[in-house]
């Protein structure tokens, strides 16, 4: 029974601890302005890295191993920075992959 509970919890938290959180954000039109978002998210102790793409209206963060940031906290951080969050998704893409894809698109 303990094993079953453990496995169920592991499956449930596994989704939350995917490590990369991608957010669709409206109002991102200027790198000069969006630096506030990066600054705010980097202050969170669970954050290990941040990528912002104006082209994709994307703010992606990676979290430290085994850590997560609740959606409500992310939404509050972005809203308090003056932007509107339109979606939050946990993905398997690493931030290095996202950076590489963004670089590829520019070529």
């Amino acid at each position, binding site marked *: 029974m303990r094993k079953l509970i453990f496995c169920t919890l592991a499956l449930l938290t596994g989704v939350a601890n995917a490590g990369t959180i991608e957010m669709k954000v409206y109002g991102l039109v200027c790198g*000069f302005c969006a630096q506030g978002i990066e600054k*705010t998210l980097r202050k969170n102790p669970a954050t290990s890295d941040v990528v912002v793409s104006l082209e994709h209206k994307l703010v992606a963060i990676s979290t430290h191993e085994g850590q997560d940031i609740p959606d409500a906290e992310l939404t509050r951080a972005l809203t*308090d920075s*003056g932007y509107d969050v339109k979606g939050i998704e946990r993905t398997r893409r690493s931030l290095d992959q996202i950076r590489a894809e963004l670089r590829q698109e520019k070529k």
Partner: protein
Amino acid sequence: MNLFRIAFAGCVLAGAGTLAEAKPIAFSHGTTVMAEYGAGTMTEAQVFYAPKYFLSLGGGHLELESDIDHRRREITYARANYLVKRWNLEDAQANVFVWGGAGQAYVSELDEHQFAANAGAQIDYETRRIYASLKTDLQRADAFSHRTDTLQLGLAPYKHDFDSLATWFVLQGRQYTGGIHDGTEWALLLRLFKRGAWIEAGVTDEGKLQAMAMVNF
């Protein structure tokens, strides 16, 4: 007064040294340092700190010199800026800001200092390719009332991204009331910014330098 101005100039230079919007509020917990040279008629430096994304507090020093009769005003002020409304659209952002403050003004023709009040507003709209803003700034004391209205229309030749250099060509029209300048002063500006550093420079229709530098950190 001199001590304050020296300290203020020191803050500006310190900020420019560590890094180098034209929005009065950059971002929550951000500091904005700005200096503008407006064709010899207007020179201004400002420092603001934003405890919230919709509010910034700070001060500035503005010098206005009439190119008609060389009357001069040197105004040092404390100011609060407030974001009244922001529209975050999928590919655009629009804002309405207001501000108000008070300080002291030196009036050259009277050779005296007077209490001065300040109020203004700005509305702007931008995408990654076009930019438009309209700003009005009123400085008032017993001896004068000057309003500076500034229209800016910008066009970017390409879409910049977060880590890349943004380039804008900006047409600026500016009018002063109260005998500072006759008619509309037009200027063509080249604006460059990347992350927290912003610089723009150009010439007016009279061939005078118009320039601004700003850092956010």
